[in-house]
């Protein structure tokens, strides 16, 4: 249940940005670790890459790209808001951010499978 004072697009955009940022930050070390396997244990990396072909993992990857896209557009929205003279188009920007995110990650998914 979202508390009543939070039920509006800008707050939801903020929370989405925060959650995606947090998820990305938690995923990042894992990503770095996997890649650095190439240095320390190439066999394991290969194994991992095979594992990564699994549709479930693919789906998780889609989620990740989705997060990145969401956070990216959310970030652009904030940067625009903060550094470009502000306009009332706030809410449409927020919506556009989410739409854009879906688009990019969607194409990615479509092409990947």
């Amino acid at each position: 249940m979202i508390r009543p004072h939070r039920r509006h697009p800008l707050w939801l955009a903020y929370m989405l940005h925060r959650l995606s940022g947090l998820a990305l930050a938690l995923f990042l070390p894992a990503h770095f670790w996997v890649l650095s396997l190439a240095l320390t244990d190439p066999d394991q990396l290969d194994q991992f890459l095979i594992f990564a072909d699994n549709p479930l993992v693919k789906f998780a990857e889609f989620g990740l790209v989705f997060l990145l896209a969401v956070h990216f557009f959310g970030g652009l929205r904030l940067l625009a808001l903060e550094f470009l003279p502000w306009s009332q188009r706030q809410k449409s920007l927020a919506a556009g951010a989410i739409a854009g995110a879906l688009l990019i990650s969607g194409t990615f998914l479509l092409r990947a499978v």
Partner: protein
Amino acid sequence: MLGIRLYMAQRLSAMMMGPLVLGHLAVMIYAIQGGLSSAEILGRTKGSIPWFLFYGAFVLAVSVHAAIGLRVILHEVTGLKGRLLEAFTWAVMLGLTVMGARAVLAVTLL
């Protein structure tokens, strides 16, 4: 508890990451679409100074960016501040930089 310097660092690193993330996504989409195997990808990136600089910059930016981001969340959710919060920020940043550096080295240099 976000002063002007941390704030600017977070916004600047975000601005820096913008093109880098787009670039990375483009590469990935291109690679997967072209059906490149991971070995093929690695083959192209290894020993490439431009790729080293590209991903190196990303790692530096993201370490700063994420460390500050997590700091803010930690402070607002738990109320932590002062030395411990500073220590946390630095730890995350250094941790990410080290791990990221290893990954970049693995992918681009050897």
